[in-house]
Every structure is written in structure tokens, then in C-alpha cells.
């Protein structure tokens, strides 16, 4: 029986927006204009289509490195909070050692990625050309 309330909530949750859209479709005047159908880009004029949109793969590398260290922070935080208590209980080696090992493994990965050019931004010849052209003008 208690599920009836959930079902009623679902019906109302779907029904109200659909009803509002239907009501406004019946009541409003329809004046199509180009400006209304264009994608809103905070005042910029949109160019191209949404599907041909491409972005630089290097954002992905940076994002990946960020996520690794972001998650690491999540782990380090609670560890840091209990650190001094933990040292008293199990001693400094067992409290500090595993975390140093963990960060060490991540550091090897970061250094490797860095040295192999994961964070050095490739120069786009087209962008450089455009910049110099604009500078000349």
C-alpha cells in the first residue's frame, strides 16, 4: 500500500510539466523567428553545428591527471585528520609509510607522463598563423 504514494508522486511529477507545456502550447501565439530558434550562447553568435564540435584531445590528458590527484586528495584528507592519533597508536612507520608509498606510486606516474609530454601543449600551426596575421593587420 505504501507504494501508492510513490506512484502518485510519479504521476504528478510527470503530469504537471506535461500539462504546463500543453496548456502553454494551446494559449500562446506562435511567431517563429530566427533569433528564437538559434542556440543561446550567452550573446555570442553560434557557429557550426553541435555535432561537428571537436575539442583538443589534450584537455583529456590534463583532466585525467587532475582526476587522479583529486581522488588522491580525498584519500589524504581523512588520513591527515587522524594522523597524529594514528602515530600514537601504531607508530610513525605504519601511519606514514603506506601513504608515502601510495603518493610515491602516483608521483612515478606523474613524472612519467610529464616527461613524455602529456602536459606540454602542442602548438597548433593554424592558430599561430592566425595570431600573427592579426598582429600584422
Amino acid at each position, binding site marked *: 500500500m505504501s507504494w501508492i504514494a510513490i506512484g502518485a508522486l510519479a504521476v504528478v511529477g510527470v503530469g504537471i510539466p506535461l500539462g504546463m507545456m500543453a496548456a502553454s502550447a494551446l494559449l500562446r501565439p506562435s511567431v517563429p523567428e530566427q533569433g528564437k530558434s538559434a542556440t543561446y550562447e550567452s550573446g555570442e553568435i553560434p557557429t557550426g553545428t553541435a555535432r561537428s564540435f571537436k575539442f583538443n584531445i589534450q584537455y583529456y590528458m590534463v583532466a585525467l591527471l587532475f582526476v587522479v590527484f583529486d581522488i588522491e586528495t580525498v584519500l589524504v584528507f581523512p588520513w591527515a585528520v587522524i594522523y597524529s592519533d594514528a602515530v600514537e597508536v601504531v607508530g610513525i612507520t605504519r601511519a606514514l609509510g603506506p601513504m608515502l608509498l601510495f603518493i610515491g*606510486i602516483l608521483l*612515478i*606516474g606523474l*613524472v*612519467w607522463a*610529464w*616527461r*613524455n*609530454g602529456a602536459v606540454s601543449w602542442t602548438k597548433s600551426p593554424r592558430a599561430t598563423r592566425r595570431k600573427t596575421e592579426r598582429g600584422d593587420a
Partner: protein
Amino acid sequence: MDPTVVTTAALQSQLPEWTALGPVIVLGLTGLLLLTIDAIWPKRNANTTYAIVSAAGAIIALGITVWYLVAGTGQETHGGAITLFSEAIVVDGMALFFTAIFTSVAALVIVASHDYLKGHENSAEFYSLLMFATTGMALMAVSNSLVTVFVSLEMASLPSYALVGFLKKDRGSVEASLKYFLIGALSSAVFLFGISLIYAVTGSLLLTEISAQFADGGVAGFAGVAGIGVLMIAGGFAYKTASVPFHFWAPEAYEGAPAPVSAFLSSASKAAGFVVAFRVFAEAFMPLLEVTPAIDWALAFAVLAVLTMVVGNFAAATQENVKRMLAYSSIGHAGYALIGLAALTAGGPHNGDVMGAAMAHLLIYGFMNTGAFLFIAMVEYWGVGRTFEDYAGLSQKAPLACVAMAVFMFSLAGLPVFGGFFSKYALFASAVSAGFWWLAAVGAVTSALSLYYYSRVVKAIWIEEPNGNLDVIESKPTGLYAAIIFAAVATVLLLPGFPIALETAEAAASALFA
């Protein structure tokens, strides 16, 4: 004082307990060492150095594993399994047995990859990914909690996706990697959902505690939830072992991947899937067979085993592409190994024999299947085509490797002259004595069928005349050659050595049911 405690203490006093994880640690450190070398000299593409370092790492890990196996670490004779990290990790005979499979396959694949990667830009990445995947697999073998099972499964899977797509300019490789990744992500999600349901029912993630809960009848009232959880977990393992119904990724991934990676995935990764499946089902879900007859997972595995044997072998028989044929044949072999789970019964006296035979089959399969895929790698290296016709007359150019290939093919088919025969024989015989004669019958019939497509390869390389396809062959890749010959020698040596392997495997499996 309790006498068992004394023996445990006396025999394990030579080394601290964490050293039981030695093979895993060595494999992981080797991967990190490769990255460090590449970070210090990123411009120098030292393919040979990386190959030597990673092969050394794999062989040291193999050495430690074999030493532990022989010395009896974690086995019944020497105080039983060693548990670490609040029982999340367990080192026992089964873990060591499978670690030996992973490390030997990894060593073979590394030696073979040295030629395959010649002139390739990022060889350090390849070797380190391979080492990390092997680390994950070795960790799968020692997982004793559903969390470690899941984490180690992902640790083995993620590098595998990257390895399949390693030839990033090759469309087939990238496509294979994407398919593998998508199906992998889906089945990980299913698997994780299954874990959460089991946790909901039992309130624990440790396999031993789950088992105790089920034995107590703690599942009463939640049999439906537990059943769905068990089914979802079985699905996750079916993916990892490339069994029906989650086998679709395997032919694509094995065909598109660089051939050494296919060898690695179809042998080591499959065995890794089986070791966790064996441990989770034999240890955690075994009481379900007894207490809750509604959740008859052994029957589910029996159905899957039959389907996998039939689908794998029939699909393999229709292939024109040799690599794809081998991919389907490896699905068929997953079906044989599944008998190790399907023929289990509650308190059955033959449980240890059945599972031990499946483990021994996976050991021999590890060598013969790796060897067969490495032969494909050599053909790919030469640039000879991919179909049976393209293989015509290869024996005129590479007689020794073709002898090895014939050994692999006949051994995979189970002809009575090579190791593959005994492992299949032991598997089917134990299934019969456990009362599952029909599983053995399906296995025997599909094995007979498999002889047809395996002998097609042998016919092509030995009997047919070359049709101008061999003109592209110029060099003899030493590393590939050595790895193929070594795998062949191991396959042949496992013929006299099979009783020892079977005995070790059965002892290790029986310990799970004790």
C-alpha cells in the same frame, strides 16, 4: 599450546608473512621500474632494455611462485592458507598455481613482443601495461574479499583495453579496443551490482564470512535478491573468461589486437577470470547449493559450459581467418574449464578433482594457446595474410616453428600425444565420476569437431604448396621464435609432467572445499 599454531609459526618463521605476496610485489615494482626508466630517458626508445627488465621481472615472479609452491607456502601441508590485510588477501595453493600460469604467459609474451615492437615508438608503455595487467591478475588470484576481487579485476582489465588498442594508427586495433572497453564497462557494472546485492543479503564482503552467513541460513527470506546477485556475479566472470553469453567481445578483441596481446588475453586473462570465479563460487557460494536449492548456480554454469563449448567450437569451424578461428577456439576452451564449476555438487567427494582438473587444463592451455597466438604474431610480423590460404606452405620457410604450431594445434584438439590430451581426459573423467557424464559427452564431441579446424591449419602449413604468399618473408625474428619453441617444449614436457601438475592442482582445489 595448540600444536597447529606451533607448526605454523615454525614453518613461516623464515620469512615475514607479507612476503607471501612477493610475486605480486615484484610484478608491480617491475612495471614502475619501466616507467621510471622511460621517465629518465624519454627520448631513448630502448625496446631491448624494457624487454629484458620486464622479462626479468616476470621470470623472478615466476621463480618465487614456483619456489613457494614447492616449499608448500600457504598450503595444507604447511599450516594452510596465509591471510593478510584482515583476510582481504589469501595466499594458498590455488593462488600460487594460477600466479605461475600468469607469470609464465607474461614472460613468453614479453619475449615475443620484443620483435613485434621493433621500431615502435612507445614500447615502454606496452611493457609497463603488460606488467600492470599481470600484477592485477596475480592480485585476482589472491583476492579473498569481493572488494579486492573487483579492484583487481579492474586492475587487470584497464591495461588490457589499452593494450588491445596499442596500434593506435590501425583502425582494427582501435575498434577492437573500443568494443572490448564498452562490453567490459557494462559487465563491470553488472558485476558490481551483483556484489552490492550479495552485501545487502549477507552484510559482509569477505568470502569466508559470506559463506558462513549462507551456511547459517542467513539468506532466508532474501533468496531472490541473493539469487540475482549470484547470477550477476556469474555474468561478470563470464565476461572475463569470454564465455557465452558474454563472449561477443572476444573474437573482435583478439582479432584486432596485436597478436602477442591476443595471446596474453586469451591465456592469462581467461585464467585470471577462472581463478576468481573458482574462489568466489567454491568458497563463498558453496553453501547455497546445500541450503538454498533454488539458487542452483552449478546448473547455471552447466548450461553455460555446454553453450560455450558448442558455440565456440561450431563458430571456430566456420572461420576463414586463422586468428579469428583461434579466438573462437579459446571460447570453446573456456567451456571446458567451466566444467570445473558446473560439475560441483553440495559436499560432493569429487569437487576437488573436478576443479583441479580444470586448473590443470588452464595451465596446459596457457602454454599451447599462447604458443599458437605467438605463431600468428610471427606470421603478422612477416606480413603474410590472415586466412588459411595465406598460411599455405609456411613450413618451407620456417620448419621449426611449424613443428611447434602443429604441436599446439594437436594439443589444443586433444590428440593423445600431447599435454592437451591428458588435461581434457582428466577433466572429462572427473566430470563423469562426479555424475555429469553429459558434460563430458558434450566436451568429447566438441573436441572431436575441433580436430577438424585445428588440422586445417596444420594441413595449410605442412601439406599445401605455397602460392607466392611467402615472398614477403625476409627475416627470422629471434625472440618470437624462441618464445614459440619454448611454449612448444613446455606443452610437450607437460605430457610426462602432467601427473605432478594435476596433483598440485587437485591438492590446491581440495583445500578450498575442506
